C-alpha cells in the first residue's frame, strides 16, 4: 500500500509501505500519521494534510484531506472516494465544529457527516487519548439510535448499538438503500487484535425489520431476527460462524411466501470477495433436516455454486409453500400433497445441474371439475443430471382419474435434459388397464410436447358404468390409440376407442382433448355405433321398451366438461330382418321429447288401446349448433304439413310418431329427457 502525506506547502513528508490489515488498522495509522506530522508541542497549530491514495483488498481511499484550525476550534475531513467492504461512497465529509487536537488527545464534538453533498442523519462525538491509545466514538442518528464505540488500551474495540435505525443507516450504506431497509438493531460488536490475529463478534436483535427490492418481488415485513456472528482471521481470510433466528414477521421471496420460524446456523470462510458457506443448517417447520453450502462472489453478488440437501420433508406442509408455486402457480390452491420427500440438489451459476429426490409414500392430487387426478402413495428415486441420462424408478400404489380408481403400478422413466421417456407403463384400471408405450415427452417453454401410444385393455362395462355413475351396461370397453400426441393445449389420440355394448359396438375415433387443464377444456371425437340392441338400450335407460337395432353416427362431437356442445347425430334402424316393436310408454316418451304436437290426435286416441305397436323403421337426426338442436326424422319422411316422421309404423297395430318442432333448445331437450328417465324408473334388464 502506498501512502503519501503532504504538508501545507504540498511537499510530501512521509512516504512508506504498510502491512496488510483492516480498516481499524488504517485508523491507527492515520492517528500515527497525525502524530508524525505534528510539531513537538502539546497542542497543534493549523494543519492541512492530504493522502492521495490508500489501497487494500478490503479498503480503498482516494484523495483524503484533513484540515484543522485550532483558533476556530474546527476540523474537517474529506474523502473523495471510499470503498470499504464492498460498499462505495463518494464526496464524504466530516465537519467538526468543536475540534481539539494535541499530542495527548483528539476530540471532535458535534461532528456532522455528508456524503455526495447530502447531509447524513448522524451526529458524531469523538474523543481519543492518543497517548493512552484509548478513545470513544459516539454516533447518534437523531432518532434515538446510538452507537457507542470504545477503543481500549489493549487495542480492542467494543461497540454498543442501541435502536440503530436501518433507515438512517441506509443513507450511509447504499446496499441497504437499494433494499429499502427498515427496522432497528440493538446489540454489541467487538473487535479484538491479539498479536495480529483479529476477531470480530457481533450479536444483536433486529426488530420491526423490513426490506423490499424495487419491484417488491423480494420483501420482508415486521421482521424480528436474532443475529450472532463470530469471525477470526486465519491465513489471510476470515473463518466465520453465524446464527440467525427468525422469530417474527413474514417475507415474500418470489414465488415463495415465508413466515417466521426458520433458524439458520452457518459457518464458512471469507477471503477477499469470496464468501464460502461451508455448512448451513436451517430448522424449518415440516422438515427434519435442511442443510446447504455455497460459494459466493461478493464483488458480483453472484452465487457461483450451491448445494442443498433436504431430509424428511413433510409434503403436506412443505408442498403448498414451496412446490405448488413452482409446479403450478395458476392452480396452486388446487394442488394437494402428502407423504414425505428427501432431496439433494446442486446448482452451478444459478442453474440446476443435479437433483435427487426420494419419495416415501408421497401423494399428489390436482382438484378439478369432474374429480381431477391423484397419484399415490408413491415411493421411489428420481435422479436428474444436466447433460447426462438417468432413470427414475417409482412405485405408485394407486391413484384416481376423475371418478375412476387406478391400481398399483411401477413407472420407470428415462430422463435426459428436459426430456422424459417411458418405455412401457401399465396402469391398472378397474378390471383392465391403460397401457402407455414409447411415450416420449419434452418440456419446452410453452409446455409439454411429445408422442407415444396408448391402449386400454378391456374393461367390463358394468364396472365402467358403475364407476361413472351411469346406468348398468353390459359389454366391454377397449381402446387402441397408437397415435398419441401431446402439445401445449392439445392431446391428440389417433386410433379408436371401442365399446362393445348392447350386442353391438360403439367406436370413437379422432379423439382430441383441447386445453386439457383449462376452463375451456373440451373433447372432440367422431363416434359411430352399429347394431345396438334397442331392447337392452331402452331398458337400461328406463325409456319404455323398443325392440330392434339401430346404427348411430355422432360426427364432430364436442364435449366441454362432458356436456355436448356440438355434433351432427343420426340414428337409423339397422339393416336386416328382426322384430320391431315399440311399447306405448316408449312412444309417449318420444312424443314428450318432441314437445306438444308431436303426435297426431288420431294416433293419440289409438295409443291408449294397445300396449305395443309394430314399426317399420325409425330415424332421428339432431344437428347441435349454438345450443339448438336442428331436428329431422327418417329420410324421405317429411310430411306436407311440416312434420317429420321419427317412427314409420308397420304391422298391426301400427302408428307413426311425427315430430313438428324442428328447432329444439338443447338444454330444454336434455331437461325433458331427464324428466322422462326420472319418471320411468324400471328394473334394469340385460
Amino acid at each position, binding site marked *: 500500500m502506498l501512502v503519501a502525506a503532504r504538508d501545507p506547502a504540498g511537499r510530501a513528508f512521509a512516504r512508506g509501505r504498510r502491512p496488510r490489515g483492516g480498516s481499524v488498522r488504517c485508523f491507527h495509522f492515520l492517528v500515527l500519521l497525525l502524530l508524525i506530522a505534528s510539531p513537538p508541542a502539546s497542542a497543534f497549530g493549523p494543519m492541512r494534510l492530504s493522502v492521495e491514495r490508500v489501497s487494500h483488498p478490503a479498503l480503498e481511499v482516494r484523495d483524503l484531506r484533513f484540515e484543522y484550525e485550532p483558533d476556530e476550534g474546527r476540523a474537517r475531513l474529506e474523502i473523495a472516494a471510499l470503498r470499504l467492504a464492498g460498499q462505495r461512497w463518494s464526496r464524504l465529509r466530516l465537519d467538526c465544529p468543536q475540534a481539539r487536537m494535541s499530542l495527548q488527545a483528539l476530540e471532535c464534538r458535534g461532528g456532522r457527516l455528508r456524503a455526495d453533498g447530502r447531509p447524513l442523519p448522524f451526529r458524531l462525538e469523538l474523543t481519543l487519548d492518543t497517548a493512552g491509545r484509548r478513545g470513544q466514538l459516539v454516533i447518534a442518528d437523531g432518532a434515538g439510535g446510538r452507537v457507542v464505540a470504545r477503543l481500549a488500551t489493549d487495542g480492542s474495540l467494543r461497540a454498543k448499538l442501541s435502536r440503530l435505525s436501518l433507515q438512517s443507516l441506509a443513507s450511509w450504506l447504499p446496499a441497504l438503500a437499494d433494499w429499502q431497509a427498515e427496522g432497528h438493531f440493538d446489540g454489541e460488536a467487538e473487535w479484538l487484535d491479539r498479536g495480529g490475529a483479529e476477531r470480530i463478534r457481533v450479536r444483536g436483535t433486529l426488530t420491526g425489520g423490513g426490506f423490499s427490492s424495487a419491484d417488491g418481488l423480494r420483501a420482508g*415485513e415486521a421482521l424480528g431476527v436474532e443475529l450472532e456472528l463470530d469471525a477470526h482471521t486465519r491465513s489471510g481470510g476470515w473463518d466465520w460462524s453465524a446464527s440467525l433466528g427468525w422469530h417474527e414477521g413474514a417475507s415474500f421471496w418470489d414465488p415463495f411466501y415465508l413466515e417466521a420460524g426458520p433458524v439458520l446456523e452457518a459457518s464458512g470462510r471469507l477471503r477477499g470477495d469470496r464468501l464460502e458457506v461451508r455448512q448451513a443448517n436451517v430448522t424449518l417447520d415440516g422438515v427434519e433436516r435442511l442443510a446447504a453450502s455455497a460459494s459466493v462472489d461478493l464483488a458480483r453478488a453472484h452465487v457461483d455454486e450451491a448445494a442443498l440437501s433436504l431430509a424428511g420433508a413433510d409434503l403436506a406442509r412443505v408442498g403448498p409453500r414451496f412446490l405448488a408455486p413452482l409446479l403450478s402457480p395458476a392452480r396452486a390452491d388446487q394442488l394437494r400433497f402428502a407423504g414425505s420427500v428427501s432431496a439433494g440438489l446442486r446448482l452451478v451459476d444459478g442453474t440446476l445441474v443435479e437433483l435427487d429426490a426420494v419419495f416415501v409414500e408421497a401423494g399428489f392430487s390436482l382438484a378439478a371439475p369432474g374429480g381431477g387426478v391423484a397419484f399415490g402413495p408413491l415411493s421411489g428415486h428420481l435422479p436428474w443430471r444436466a447433460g447426462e441420462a438417468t432413470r427414475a424408478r417409482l412405485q405408485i400404489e394407486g391413484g384416481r382419474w376423475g371418478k375412476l380408481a387406478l391400481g398399483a403400478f411401477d413407472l420407470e422413466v428415462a430422463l435426459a435434459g428436459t426430456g422424459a421417456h417411458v418405455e412401457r407403463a401399465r396402469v391398472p384400471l378397474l378390471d383392465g388397464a391403460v397401457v402407455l408405450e414409447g411415450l416420449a415427452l419434452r418440456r419446452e417453454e410453452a409446455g409439454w410436447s411429445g408422442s407415444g401410444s396408448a391402449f386400454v385393455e378391456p374393461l367390463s362395462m358394468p364396472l365402467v358404468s358403475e364407476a361413472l355413475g351411469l346406468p348398468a351396461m353390459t359389454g366391454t370397453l377397449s381402446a387402441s390409440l397408437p397415435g398419441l400426441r401431446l402439445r401445449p*393445449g392439445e392431446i391428440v389420440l389417433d386410433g379408436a376407442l371401442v365399446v362393445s355394448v348392447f350386442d353391438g359396438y360403439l367406436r370413437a375415433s379422432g379423439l382430441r382433448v383441447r386445453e386439457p387443464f383449462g376452463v375451456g377444456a373440451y373433447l372432440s371425437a367422431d363416434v359411430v355405433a352399429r347394431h345396438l340392441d334397442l331392447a337392452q338400450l331402452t331398458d337400461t335407460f328406463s325409456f319404455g321398451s323398443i325392440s330392434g337395432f339401430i346404427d348411430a353416427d355422432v360426427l364432430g362431437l364436442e364435449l366441454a366438461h362432458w356436456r355436448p*356442445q356440438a355434433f351432427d347425430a343420426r340414428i337409423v334402424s339397422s339393416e336386416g330382418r328382426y322384430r320391431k316393436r315399440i311399447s306405448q310408454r316408449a312412444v309417449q316418451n318420444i312424443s314428450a321429447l318432441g314437445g306438444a304436437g308431436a303426435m297426431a290426435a288420431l294416433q293419440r286416441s289409438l295409443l291408449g288401446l294397445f300396449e305395443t305397436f309394430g314399426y317399420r323403421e325409425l330415424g332421428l337426426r339432431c344437428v347441435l349448433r349454438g345450443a339448438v338442436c336442428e331436428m329431422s326424422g327418417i329420410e324421405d319422411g317429411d310430411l306436407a304439413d311440416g312434420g317429420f316422421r321419427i317412427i314409420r309404423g308397420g304391422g298391426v297395430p301400427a302408428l307413426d310418431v311425427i315430430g313438428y318442432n324442428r328447432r329444439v333448445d338443447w338444454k330444454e331437450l336434455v331437461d325433458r329427457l331427464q324428466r322422462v328417465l326420472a319418471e320411468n324408473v324400471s328394473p334394469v334388464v340385460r
Partner: protein
Amino acid sequence: MNIKRWIAVLLLAFSSALAAQGNLEIDSPAIAALKGAMQQRHARLAPLYAAGAVGQAADGTIALRDASSVPLAQRGQVNSLIAAENADRLALYREIARANDHPEWEADVRRTFAQRWIDRAQPGWWVQRGGSWVRK
C-alpha cells in the same frame, strides 16, 4: 368505463383489426368459457392494473411489475392470478386460431391481441413498450 364495456370494446376492436386475416370475434364453447373466466377474473385484476402492480406485457400476457403495493401475504396469490390469466390468454389465442380453422395463426392472433391490450389499456395502467414499462 366499466370492465365489461372495456372488454367488449377490446374484442370488437380485435375483430375489426383482424378481419383481413380471420375472425377474432369467432365464438365457440371453449372461447366463451375462456372469455367468461377472464371477465370474472378481471374484477380482481383491474385494481392491480390500476395500482401498477401488474402490467400488460408486450407478448400478450400480463406480468407482475411492482408487487410493492400488494400486501405481502397476497403476493403469492397475485402470482397465481397472473399465471391463471396467462394460461387462459394463451388458450384463447390458440382457440381463436383453431376456430378459424387455422391453428398456425396462433402467433399472429397473439401478436394482435398483445398490441390491442396495450393500446386499449386505461390511463394509469402500465404497459410494456420496447422492453420497458410505461405508464399510460
